[in-house]
């Protein structure tokens, strides 16, 4: 990758160690993705906010970085560990470490979004704009549905891009890489619920070897709920950063059938039942809350039900009366946070959870180490209310 003279100087340390490190990261990912040069980006979305994901070394690292650095572009951040407006039983250590992380990002000028769905909250740049999104589900969603151009960035590469305002011009930032060469076909399976879409994405992520894959049997227009489900499933299992739907001429096809769907379900759904219900990985938006509200139709949940939501969406839902209607089912909102690696759910207090999210199921099982019953939202409401 060719750096400009001024970029070379910063890499050599002319603006200090933090900027030099940022350019070291950009150079490495530029090499990895065979970029020719760096290009400006308009928006960075950073992961690595929840203390449970980055730990003490992450806390210290961000404190060092935050000294003397201001983000160059609009920067939003992923969910943190808990809801700031609610009491919790987390340790003093967790709370203070989490606050140190939040302070570091604030100091650098990040918007306190605490959301994995920034595309549902903020004004979107026009199609074709280069951005740098780390959250895997948001990167896949933004490439696939919003026409934004990002590689599947890492927590550290998006941070480097927020600091420098640049990312490598490579891979999914180049139009020709956005045409899939492999198309997934559905062989004898019906993809109906959001959980089916999530599973399909999860399986495809394991198959995909390119940065973009096609689902040739899916309609090119998709509702928000299945769109978020398939994007997050794909982001969870693979390194693929984009998909298209509808037929793709001249592509090689790979079939997914009953056997693959059953295998993925068995892998993620370890239990028949669970102690509590969790919705919101990715965090729910207004259309999903409306769908949930319609399903509940006056019934009450027979066990605890947590809805993860960004504060912005929650406040909007509150304003239009939707939040209180949903709460009358006994469900509770949990803002600022997400179910993945939530410190609130551990093996000490929970045997298993029920969720409609493939991504949530994967992280609950593999990181939180609790059992999972994976069912779609309609089935969950029918069974447990």
């Amino acid at each position, binding site marked *: 990758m060719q750096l400009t003279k001024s970029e070379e100087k910063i890499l050599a340390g002319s603006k200090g160690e933090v900027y030099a*490190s940022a350019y*070291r*990261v950009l*150079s*490495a*990912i530029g*090499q*990895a*993705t065979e970029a020719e040069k760096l290009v400006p980006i308009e928006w960075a979305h950073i*992961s*690595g906010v929840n203390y449970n*994901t*980055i*730990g003490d*070394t*992450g806390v210290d*690292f961000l404190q060092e970085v935050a000294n003397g650095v201001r983000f160059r572009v609009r920067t939003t951040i992923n969910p943190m560990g808990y809801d700031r407006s609610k009491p919790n039983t987390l340790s003093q250590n967790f709370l203070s470490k989490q606050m140190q992380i939040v302070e570091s990002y604030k100091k650098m000028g990040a918007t306190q979004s605490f959301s994995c769905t920034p595309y549902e909250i903020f004004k979107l740049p026009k199609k074709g704009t280069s951005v740098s999104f*780390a*959250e*895997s589900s948001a*990167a896949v969603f933004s490439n696939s549905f919003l026409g934004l151009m990002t*590689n*599947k*960035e*890492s*927590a*550290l*590469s*998006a941070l*480097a891009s927020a600091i420098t305002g640049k990312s490598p011009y490579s891979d999914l930032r180049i139009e020709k890489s956005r045409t899939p060469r492999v198309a997934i076909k559905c062989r004898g399976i019906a993809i109906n619920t959001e959980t089916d879409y999530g599973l399909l994405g999860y399986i495809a*992520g394991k198959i995909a*070897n390119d940065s973009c894959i096609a689902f040739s049997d899916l309609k090119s227009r998709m509702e928000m709920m299945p769109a978020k489900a398939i994007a997050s499933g794909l*982001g*969870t*299992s*693979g*390194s693929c950063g984009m998909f298209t739907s509808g037929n793709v001429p001249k592509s090689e096809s790979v079939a997914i059938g009953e056997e693959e769907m059953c295998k993925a379900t068995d892998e993620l759904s370890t239990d028949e039942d669970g102690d509590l219900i969790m919705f919101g990985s990715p965090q729910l938006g207004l259309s999903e809350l409306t769908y949930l509200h319609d399903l509940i139709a006056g019934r009450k949940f027979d066990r605890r039900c947590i809805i993860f939501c960004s504060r912005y969406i929650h406040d909007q839902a509150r304003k239009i009366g939707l939040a209180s209607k949903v709460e009358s089912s006994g469900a509770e909102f949990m803002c600022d946070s997400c179910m993945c*690696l939530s410190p609130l759910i551990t093996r000490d207090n929970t045997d298993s959870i029920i969720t409609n999210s493939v991504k949530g199921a*994967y*992280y609950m099982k*593999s*990181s939180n180490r609790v059992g999972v019953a994976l069912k779609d939202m309609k089935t969950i409401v029918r069974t447990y209310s």
Partner: protein
Amino acid sequence: MYVVGCKCIVKGFAEGEALVSDTPINFLTMIDAGSGEIKDLNHNLYGQTLKDKIFVFPYSVGSSVGAYVLYSLKKKSSGPLAIISSNRMDITTASGCAISNIPAVHLKCLNIHQVIRNSQALIVDADGEQILIYPN
């Protein structure tokens, strides 16, 4: 000893034993960020550690936070000596190695076991874009 060419992603030099994974790695869920142990029960290298090994794997998948796991391993002296990607070098791995000064190279090779076996002694010379492999 024989030599194979590779592509430099993060500069550096390392000599040690290879730990070769056939399957992609999600650093956040599969690797213990303190000890470097592979904690995924379904992984064929379950219980083995990345610490002081030259870790060879196809590419990383899933969480974008995996880059912090590499940084944490390095800080806790539990990190790999070097990394070799055998299918493609992904952004999570490249950025994690860059910030942690872990030498990283890419060696495109679909059947990596034919070239590097588990426990085989290697030298990764990222600057010189070559891997020196000792006979087994």
